[in-house]
């Protein structure tokens, strides 16, 4: 069965040249979707990727990344939305790259955490400053 998992990778400077994308595809048979990346030579880098493949392959791939010295976090942990303060205006909606923020039939804002690609556009778009991205 095909599964998907969105993760945030943090590279220490000495590992920015390790070809992790190549390894994950070739050795673990995973489909990679790079959603966001900030990787520069000789500086710590960050990447949001979606891994798709067999559940066991994803597990093994994540283990490979951790063993290589990369920090791996569940991407859903990296956005903080103080939903209780939301007024449901919808100012954030057209800015959301992952289409994770949508107005529902009930005229309220709905946030689909799993669809979030951590683009961060909601942070400046929300006039009540209810979003925080730790990426």
């Amino acid at each position, binding site marked *: 069965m095909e599964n998907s998992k969105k993760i945030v990778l943090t590279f220490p400077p000495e590992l920015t040249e390790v070809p992790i994308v190549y390894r994950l595809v070739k050795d673990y048979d995973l489909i990679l979707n790079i959603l966001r990346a900030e990787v520069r030579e000789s500086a710590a880098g960050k990447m949001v990727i979606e891994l798709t493949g067999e559940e066991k392959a994803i597990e093994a791939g994540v283990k490979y990344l951790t063993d290589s010295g990369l920090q791996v976090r569940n991407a859903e942990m990296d956005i903080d939305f103080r939903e209780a303060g939301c*007024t*449901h*205006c*919808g*100012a*954030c*909606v*057209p*800015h959301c790259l992952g289409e994770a923020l*949508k*107005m529902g039939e*009930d*005229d*309220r804002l709905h946030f689909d955490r799993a669809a979030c690609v951590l683009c961060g556009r909601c942070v*400046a*778009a929300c*006039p*009540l*400053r209810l979003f925080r991205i730790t990426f």
Partner: protein
Amino acid sequence: MSVTRTFEEINEKIKAGKAVVVTAEELIGLVAEEGVTAATKKVDVVTTGTFGPMCSSGAYLNIGHPLPRMKLNKAWVNEVEVYCGLAAVDIYIGATELRRGDRANENYPGTFEYGGAHVIHELVAGEKVHIEATAYGTDCYPRKELNGRFSLAQINQAVLLNPRNCYQNYNVAVNRSRERTIHTYMGILKPDFGNANYCSAGQLSPLLKDPTYRTVGIGTRVFLGGGTGYVYWQGTQHHPDVERTEGGAPTVPAGSLGLVGDLKTMKPHWLQGYSATGYGVSLLLGVGIPIPLLDEEVCRAAAATDAELFAPIVDYSSDYPQGNKSPYGKVSYAELKSGSIKIEGRTVPTGSLSSYSKAREIAEELKGWIRSGSFLLGKPVEPLPGPDSGLGFNMFPMDR
């Protein structure tokens, strides 16, 4: 024979707990099912609501005299400068005033995290605020410095006094420039028609439901920031002489209201600080206005649907700042609320700055107040200038 009723008759029914009150949304359903005549017969009052940023807002306070006495000359509340050009310890907090030292757009786009509107919110939330003031000193007011804290409950008067609220209809803002994202009071606009932002509750919005000001005027009692307020004058830039639909609703910004109310009766939930990235601070404010169904004409206008109410599409990268005529036409609130609109054949996603679900909550709350008999209708002592008043929108005389 068609039904007519007066403010006095309706208020008697409210006092007796017999008034029939519905929200504007409910009236729309009723008129669709039973027609205007039957709905007018049945319903006494329709409630409306809006919850959005309203920049031309502020509050004046009398903070009480310190000892020895002082005539404030310059003052800051929570680091936000307040206006002291009034009597000794009267101050006015402007909603859009920035915090001292805010670099504004020097590091573009500025984030504008805190300003006058946030101070007003904190006061309403019951928090203590800090005041720092200086004075030149006089024989009767010798004190030259003040550093202290106060809460709303500790001061004499606190009055929300807003020169312009409840704009009757508003522009749909777009950015037609090719490359640059712009930051406006209408929100963040992506280049090349990346999004279209609007700001009205449409079929729930007070002045779109009484489009020719048949019932709203000076003295109208309203829901203001969760408390009770009044219309004290036409709002600034009130310019009712504009293009209108057959039903009388303006298809561009038109009327506006000056509103006043006791800040001490308001609720923090309905009055919040608003940070517009790259633009500034504003006050997010809830207003609800009751419309008495005096006759069928009032009912018909109050039952206008989102599909019958229109707003103009305006480019904010160049046409709006330069005052050029907008070539993109009008769009209905039904289309805006669908999530996207068509502009010159392209699909453009929409975003709203005002909250429709909060507007609905306000209309519901006001309905409850009237039904319980605790809120009577205020009969205007003077009407507002109407569509035939000739009042237009004047620009500054650049030619002197």
